[in-house]
């Protein structure tokens, strides 16, 4: 009699007519972890299936129209015209100096690849929300310039240059 297996006893993949629930972790009923539950609500990004396919440009335009933040890898970032959409780069401090403060990683909204594998990502936010969600590095530079300046030293070369300039202007 045949038991459904080939005679050499190799396993054959078969479709079983029932659904089998397997506990995810060691104990039955242990359930999902909190981060797994929250991960399940992550938005998949632009649609890439045959039904309802969206091109990267369409999805980025849609995000910009609804003023959503846009995360792009370094390669897609070059194709994004932030100023035309009135978007600004989000800045976050990184005291370690590992990044320049503009790095934000995740899934690229255009190519759907991990930005960490594509030269790091950048996050663009709507200009009207920028003050609310981004630190302003420019302010630190302004404060630094106002803080102090070196003592002016007498330079003979500078004196001669100015004197000659004055002679020529007469």
């Amino acid at each position, binding site marked *: 009699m045949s038991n459904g297996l080939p005679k050499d006893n190799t396993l054959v993949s078969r479709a079983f007519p029932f659904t089998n629930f397997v506990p995810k*972790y060691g104990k039955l009923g*242990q*359930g*999902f*972890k*909190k*981060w797994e*539950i*929250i991960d*399940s*609500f*992550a*938005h998949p*990004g632009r649609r890439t299936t045959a039904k309802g396919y969206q091109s990267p440009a369409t999805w980025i335009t*849609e995000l910009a129209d609804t*003023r*959503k*933040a846009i*995360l792009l890898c370094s390669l897609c970032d070059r194709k994004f015209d932030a100023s035309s959409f009135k978007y600004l780069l*989000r800045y*976050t*401090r*990184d*005291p*370690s100096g*590992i*990044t320049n*403060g*503009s*790095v*934000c*990683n*995740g*899934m690229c*909204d255009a190519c759907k690849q991990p930005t960490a594998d594509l030269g*790091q990502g950048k*996050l663009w*936010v*709507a200009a009207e*929300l920028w*003050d*609310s*969600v*981004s*630190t302003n590095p420019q302010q630190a530079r302004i404060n630094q310039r106002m803080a102090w300046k070196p003592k002016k030293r007498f330079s003979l070369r500078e004196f001669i240059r100015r004197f000659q300039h004055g002679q020529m202007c007469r």
Partner: protein
Amino acid sequence: MGKCVGNYNFGGDAARKYLIGASFTTAGIIACGDADTPDALIPATTTTAVDSLGITLDTATYSATPALGATGIVTVGYRPGSILEFRASGTTASGGALSILTETAGDVSTPDTITATLPTSHSMVGTDGDVPLSESRMILTHTSTTSLAVTVDFEQAININDQFLMVPWTIYPGDGTDTSDGNTNVQFTTALDEADATIATGTGAILAVYDLIMKGENKTAVQVVLTDHPYFVVVA
């Protein structure tokens, strides 16, 4: 106006878009999971930040019956260890200035005593006026509404009309309890984008106070780290 100002593990931030279970009308507020229900992301409340994932970077409107292509999504900077900075508001609504405490008696004792109309149960005092802004003192116990003694003198003498600011947070753990320690609680304003500095120390959402930026009545801010972050959980 809550914003990520770094990460105590260093490096850049990470962001992701999530489906929402309630509207996020303001950018820069804490987004929380609803893992016990479970449901999509919801905003923190003024007094809770349970399963807090990170800070929102845009706004979103929730609808149970969204139109095609209009499902509500919000972008969240979700990296664990993010240092989130919230401006301190002197009112329960966002945008309020902190109350300035004006000295009425001058330096009358050692260590210093500030004599002014004071809020009760605040745990950190900063200075404005004659005493340099960078000087601040932590207060362990305080209930009086008229005077306040600090443990360590200010470097400069307190004069009449010197001005002080008080906030209900500290940068050091006090007594270590969740409900009374100024290091572990921050309450948010009604719009959720600023920290409510009018509350008593030890009330509000359970978070870790990372630093205090004492910069006068309008630019004082509290920096916090989310302690109930889902990615900190190792075992369900």
